[in-house]
């Protein structure tokens, strides 16, 4: 990754990054924004992965959200940065597992461990752990099979 990291946190005047700070932006495949041209599309150089957001970019957007007094939005972007590593299908699986009465406490804790251990997604893990605790208290865990 050749993404340059700004030495001081970004502020509102850096927004929009695509206009004011394009040099900070890279695709997850390491390409600068200026490489995302029609020629590159036509030649087949660009794939779907080139049009995804990189975790580093989400961290930059989190800095902007923090600088705009939006701490919850910034936290959301930090969780999102962690989740860029998770394949689409698994993201959907995890979401479905968080639906009411879809999972046992053990299943939810296993997801939290996978997030934290396999994906280094500590902040996202916290959300799932909190869900497990609240679901238990509010009787929203999966009910044992009954005949």
């Amino acid at each position, binding site marked *: 990754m050749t993404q340059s990291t700004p030495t001081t946190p970004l502020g509102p005047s850096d927004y*929009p990054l695509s206009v004011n700070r394009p040099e900070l932006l890279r695709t997850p495949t390491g390409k600068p924004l200026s490489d995302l041209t029609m020629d590159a599309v036509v030649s087949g150089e660009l794939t779907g992965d080139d049009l995804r957001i990189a975790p580093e970019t989400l961290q930059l957007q989190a800095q902007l959200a923090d600088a705009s007094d939006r701490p919850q*939005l910034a936290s959301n972007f930090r969780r999102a940065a962690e989740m860029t590593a998770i394949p689409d299908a698994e993201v959907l699986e995890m979401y479905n597992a968080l639906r009411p009465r879809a999972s046992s406490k053990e299943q939810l804790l296993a997801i939290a461990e996978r997030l934290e251990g396999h994906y280094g997604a500590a902040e996202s893990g916290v959300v799932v752990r909190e*869900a497990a605790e609240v679901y238990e208290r509010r009787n929203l865990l999966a009910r044992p099979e009954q005949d």
Partner: protein
Amino acid sequence: MTSTQPEAFRRRSSRRTEILEDRPVNLDGFVEEWPEKGLVAMESEFDPRPSVRVEDGRIVELDGKGRGAFDFMDTFIANHAIDVETTEASMAIPSDEIARMLIDPNVSRRDVLAVSRGLTPAKILDVVKLMNVVEIMQGMQKMRARRTPANQGHSTSARDNPIQVAVDAAEGALRGFAELETTLGVLRYAPLVAIALQIGAQVGRGGVLTQCALEEATELELGMRGITAYAETISIYGTESVFVDGDDTPWSKAFLASAYASRGIKMRFTSGTGSEVQMGNAEGKSMLYLEIRCILMAKGAGVQGLQNGSISCIGVPGAMPGGIRAVAAENLVASMVDLECASGNDQSFSHSAMRRTARAMPQLLPGTDFVCSGYSGVPNLDNMFAGSNFDTDDYDDWNTIQRDMQVDGGLRHVREDEILEARDKAARALQALFAHLDLPAVTDDEVEAATYANSSNDYPLRDVLADLKGAQSVMDRGLTGLDLVKGLEATGFHDVAENLLTVLRQRVSGDLLQTSAILTPDFVPLSAINDANDYAGPGTGYRLQGERWEQLKKLRHVTSATNPETEVG
């Protein structure tokens, strides 16, 4: 009945009563309040009294309940939405003082936010209950997150005809919608219709953002593939029981919010007064109290915005005394906690044209981030969101009201030759793209019909089975937004391909993830960061003037000042 009226006066109705009986407004439903069941807009003695208590950096009491008695909404709001550092100080400010801050031009938006981030749901209710509808509008004028107001349109088809969706999206984009949304009658049509919406929008005006309202998981998948640009139908509810009935929790929805952001996709939640009582479990609380819980839940999840204003439940508050005031108040609350607000006016609401117009004034006059979260860009019979408060028949009325009041409702009059050109081009682009991708053919007759059509009745019938097969193949083959760009470029629609590529490229930068973001016609992201609402009284904030005002002075028929025999335009 023990009427004291003389018998003779009750034999028949007067001519006037007959005329009034026949007025459309009397087809609307109105009911008495029933606070015990939550059938009350915003004034209920059963709503909790505001309170908060913090111990060891944690909220342990919220609106009269101790932590042990919290349901999951209380827990989520206490843990994530309310600023623990400032809550006790904010809660100590009398409600009337906070209400006055909301309308005082000498108090900045930032000053209000410094207080509102520490308020509980019951306290916020206590504040907005003090405000009449004009004060609510004054508050909205200042608290709206984005300085420049905008509008969102629907483009749907009663036959799920993708060509109609494309050409009406092109016309809508040209007329000014910053976002366009579609949904389906037959869900399996979704991939074809979502593609059509995207192509049509980019023909009409590059940079318009599109979405397809579907079940959560499918909606996310279309977004991940780059076929749609944002998502909105992520519903949340104000009671735990109704939230669970919707098969979600605040944690599943918060996870989903991060999932969207992790793919660079703009997203907002949806909620609205009346949904809990309509779904049968308001737990005896007023509609607005429950909606404020939704708004704070959205805030706590870190989602950038919310579609609210009763939305598909508008008939419920609409039937109540003060109901439309409550709907205006819920939009204000979303804005006063710093969320993007797409402010309703998006569902059939009344048989009365006067009532439909009056209902929109609290959003249109002060301006909101999106005045309608679905102005129907198709005739009402084609509106698959069960009809909107405004539709294509109302375009000229809307434009005239903007000109009369000198307010910016996000639309403009466009000359017919330009509209026909855009419709024709959208239909031809879709024809070429479908052929290129080996999707069901669009005939020249269909292109011709689409250019001049009003409703789905004006189009040749499609082979639905072939379309559904084509739709399935979009999913099976894993077609993405990039394939659409390639196809458009290969078939000679270079400018449309460039527009779409530029929209897709936005997700690499993440700029559209910030609060209230839209794309200008020059593809510059415009959000609450670089277009922050700076209203500070008369002469400040967004003013409809200059080039934009010149645009809005134009109507279908305006008599020339220099030659009264001719019209300008």
